[in-house]
């Protein structure tokens, strides 16, 4: 029984790490520009599918992966420059529709150039699974957890130790003030989108060996990442990670112990439950309106 629990927990944390990375990407863009990026999931898709396609052309995996990640980064930059920046001070809802349009657009491109089939990426290690305490653990999970932890740490250091990272934080807190002290906010916003795309792409690559990849995997993953970010409290990076892990575990336990039919309902039940008690998510800030 314990081994069962251990297995569910492990797969839950693995999935949670992916959601956390997606949620971090969301939070990054949301913080910098107050845009809810419905196209976030598409970056994962570009990471996974991009690697597959590059490998099909004969590239070795250690070149295909960076290539796909760069592709996603470019997509992120273009998304900001061509779709978000021109919209300037549009309504929040309008911006959401723009990102929805972008996600449809990217999916459409993937469908044309990369086809509709599902593809698998080889696991990173030769040994695919380990038996630990009666539970079967995929070694890919260890890769996912390790890489995710590395990325999160790197991101944290970027924000606290580098001037560029601090400039990003400043822009997200008050765009006008930041531009007045000389920060090129336009470039910073583009950078935020680029980094979010890179995060998404890496997540897409490391999870592809487990869940397969196709032109439309971005929809659900993006949505769940968004929910994870909201669970943690929109705007909080720690919240995004917490939300992602929580969501992953909740899904795993539900699928394991309750029913796999309703597994897909878990993220949505979870967000409703959390918002009921904490209207701003777990770590979201309580904005006070000054009159």
């Amino acid at each position, binding site marked *: 029984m314990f081994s069962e629990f251990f297995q569910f927990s492990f797969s839950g944390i693995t999935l949670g790490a992916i959601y956390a990375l997606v949620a971090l990407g969301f939070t990054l863009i949301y913080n910098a520009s107050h845009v809810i990026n419905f196209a976030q999931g598409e970056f994962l898709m570009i990471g996974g599918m991009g690697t597959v396609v590059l490998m099909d052309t004969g590239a070795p995996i250690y070149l295909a992966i960076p290539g796909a990640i760069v592709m996603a980064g470019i997509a992120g930059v273009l998304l900001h420059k061509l779709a978000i920046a021109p919209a300037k001070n549009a309504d929040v809802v309008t911006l959401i529709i723009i990102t929805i349009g972008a*996600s449809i657009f990217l999916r459409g491109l993937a469908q044309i150039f990369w086809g509709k089939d599902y593809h698998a990426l080889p696991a990173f290690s030769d040994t695919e699974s380990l038996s630990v305490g009666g539970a079967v653990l995929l070694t890919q999970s260890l890769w996912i957890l390790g890489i995710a932890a590395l990325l999160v740490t790197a991101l944290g250091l970027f924000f606290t130790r580098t001037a560029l990272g601090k400039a990003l934080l400043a822009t997200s807190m008050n765009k006008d003030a930041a531009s007045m002290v000389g920060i090129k906010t336009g470039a910073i916003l583009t950078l935020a989108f680029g980094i979010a795309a890179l995060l998404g792409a890496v997540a897409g690559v490391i999870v592809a060996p487990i869940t397969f990849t196709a032109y439309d995997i971005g929809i659900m993953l993006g949505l769940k990442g968004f929910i994870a970010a909201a669970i943690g409290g929109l705007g909080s990076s720690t919240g995004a990670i917490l939300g992602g892990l929580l969501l992953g575990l909740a899904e795993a336990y539900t699928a394991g112990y309750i029913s796999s039919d309703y597994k*897909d309902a878990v993220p949505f039940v979870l967000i409703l439950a959390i918002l009921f008690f904490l209207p701003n998510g777990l770590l979201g800030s309580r904005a006070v309106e000054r009159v």
Partner: protein
Amino acid sequence: MATFKTRSKVPGLVALLVVLAVAPLLAANAFHYDLMIKICLTAIVAVGLNLLVGYAGQVSLGHAAFYAAGAYASALLTQNYAFSPLPAMLTAAVAVGALAWLVGRPILHLKGHYLSMATLGLGVIAAIVINNEDQITGGPDGLAVAPLSVFGHELSVFGRYEWFGVAITGTQLWYLLAAGGLFLAVWLALNLIDSPLGRALRALHGSEIAAQVAGVDTAKYKLRVFVISAVYASVAGSLYAHYSGFITPDAASFGHSIELITIVVLGGMASTYGVILGAAILLLIPQFLTGFQELEMVLFGAILMAVMIFMPRGLVPTIARRFQKEAA
């Protein structure tokens, strides 16, 4: 005595009537009629959703659930409980309204993106429940629905009828019904917007605090407009169920909810006529793109982005503004 101008509703309504009357002349076959009927029914949902999103400023990303609830309720009541279609539709509307009231009470306290998320969550949960509870709902395979009948007279798309000596097909009759329904929906909505209740709703979007000091119980009013927009969706859903003869859980899907929100934003938030145009465009674009086959998704996404970037307030408000500027 100060003079003031009040904008009359009549020109707009007359224009709508003309458009609805002229449209059938452009229809060459049953398929065109089918498209127009779908546009009318979708527009009814959009008009209701616009009250909530465009006027009152509360974003709902799960409205398809109410549409599907109306559709399934009508289907089940007529099929399993021997209700006549019209009473079934009314009962469904009341039930969906009650459901919206129950569900809206806790979630409308949420603000901004959190409200959107909560509505999104509810919408998806409804879709999953409909999908899974196949004993009741027929699951992913869907449910067949009896054709509409009013006081014993059946209205089926396959029927041929005679009106004042003119032969008219079931589909054409259905168009009259759908267009009439849309006209009624718009008239009611315009009345509402112009009333004290409507002003209070718009104040919810403009400044909740201002509304409160004027004595508006903002929580209660948010709930009211939520219920009204849910009832709109339910009625449209019921009509669609009887028209198409078949409903599937897709009606409640997240994709459908997003389609509805897109229509509202595309056509113009807080523009009742705008969302009708939005519905027409969103349902017509795929028709024009079928020739492009694979490029359909890419073009659709590109068009959506382009329209929203260059006309962020939606089509009709942007066009109206351009006319205003030229007139000034």
